Structures are given as structure tokens and as C-alpha cells.
């Protein structure tokens, strides 16, 4: 089994707010991230797939194909978007890095017939990232 990781970058804005909380609770729990006008990040996405190395091609996966799937299914949906307003999954769900990683997994999993998805890692900043392995 060999693991292969492909990176992509996207920039997006978001804010954290739960309508079930009072304004004070939202402020206390989410701090500056509660600003309703949003704020942005340069995100880095790492998609790790695993599989056997094909004897003829020497590949776990055709990287060009993986790159196209990542661009089509993820980057086009989130790059230069206000996640809360423009991405349906985040109309109700708070676009935290945790939820971004889980959402990207659910987008990619059914589209990746070329290899087995192992891990989604999303960096919100170089010092903060979330890993999701598809666990319930």
C-alpha cells in the first residue's frame, strides 16, 4: 500500500454563528470569528489517497485525474467564495475547519473511483489544521 498526497490552495471567507445561541453566547464562543461580515483565509487542502502501485504505470493514481477531480468537486465550489452564503452545505452548518474537512470528504469520496480516499487535511493557516479520515 502506498499513500499519495496532492495539495491545492483556495481562498475564502466565512464567519461563525449559531442562530440557536444568543448574541452574547455567539460572541463568547466564537469571538472575533462571529463578525457577520466575514473574514478570510488562504486555505491549503491536502488530499491523501492510498492504493497498490499499478505494475504498468507505476502509479497509485493518475495525478492529473486526481487534480481535475479536486478542482472540479472542491476548488470551484469554495475558491473566492463567502462560504456561509455561497456554499449550500454551510447555509445551516458552521463553516469551521472541522466542517470544511468533513464536507470535502463527502464531496470527494463518491467521485474518487481512481483510488481509496485516506485523509482530508485542511489548513486554515500554517499553524492550524484539521484531519478527517471518514470516521463516524
Amino acid at each position, binding site marked *: 500500500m502506498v499513500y499519495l498526497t496532492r495539495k491545492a490552495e483556495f481562498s475564502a471567507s466565512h464567519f461563525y454563528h449559531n442562530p440557536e445561541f444568543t448574541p452574547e453566547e455567539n460572541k463568547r464562543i466564537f469571538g472575533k470569528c462571529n463578525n457577520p461580515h466575514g473574514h478570510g483565509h488562504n486555505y491549503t487542502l491536502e488530499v491523501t489517497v492510498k492504493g497498490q502501485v499499478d505494475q504498468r504505470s507505476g502509479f497509485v493514481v493518475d495525478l492529473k485525474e486526481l487534480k481535475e477531480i479536486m478542482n472540479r468537486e472542491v476548488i470551484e465550489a469554495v475558491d473566492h467564495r463567502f462560504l456561509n452564503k455561497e456554499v449550500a452545505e454551510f447555509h445551516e452548518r458552521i463553516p469551521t475547519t472541522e466542517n470544511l474537512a468533513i464536507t470535502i470528504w463527502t464531496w470527494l469520496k463518491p467521485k474518487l473511483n481512481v483510488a481509496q480516499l485516506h485523509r482530508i487535511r485542511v489548513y486554515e493557516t500554517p499553524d492550524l489544521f484539521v484531519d478527517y479520515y471518514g*470516521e463516524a
Partner: protein
Amino acid sequence: MKAYLTKRYWFSASHRLHCDALSAEENRDVYGKCNNPHGHGHNYALEVTVTGQVDSKTGMVCNLADLDGFVHENILERFGHENLNTLPEFQGVVPTTENLCMEIYDILERGFQHAAIEKVRMEETMLNSFEYAGGREIRN
């Protein structure tokens, strides 16, 4: 759904690698330049990984403000700009980054209440790093 959140921190400290049970010559052999009696320092990078179910109300494994607060108070304040050899946790324990990594894991495991500690990873320099997950296998 279970996710793993990692936050990276920095602190600077000095240390000297020296074992009292070894002779002066053996210490120089084992630790090389790190045995310099006056010590030397590093900018340590510390990565703390916590894990748990993503809370449906907050979208978080744990509130970063809680993790940042705990790490600042109990780790960065404690070790930052210190000579590690002078601290009580390193009396009779060589302050290698292996031991520092395990000590920091234990502080988090004992005291941090908001999420489970998955692992601690430390970079002593850009060229070496250490990981400890309480004796469990490291998940990559």
C-alpha cells in the same frame, strides 16, 4: 463525526544534554556538542493534536480559545525562555526533545479537559522532529 485538530505553537529554551551516570568522556561521546556545559538553545515548534466528535452546535472539536489558553498558561509560560535543566521535571531526566515531548503530552493529558489529546509533535530544529501519542501508534 470524529476529527483531529492540530495547532502549532513556538517557544524558545536552552538545555544541556548530560547524564550523571556517565563519565565526562562518555557524555561527550554520546551527546557531542549538546554536552557543552554552558548549554545551548532552540526555537521549538510544538504541535498539539486533539480529537473528538465535532460538536453539532459549534462545528468544533474544541474551542481553540480553550486550547490556546491552556497551552499558553501550562506549557509556553512554563518552558519558554527557560533553561530546561533547571526545571524540576528535568532533575534526573535528560532534557532531550524526546523527554520534553513526553512531558508536554503528560501535562496536556492530565490537565486539558475540553478534548482528548491525540499526540504531541515537536520540532527541535527544521531538520528533526519527535512525536508521542501516549505510547499509541502514530496515525498518519
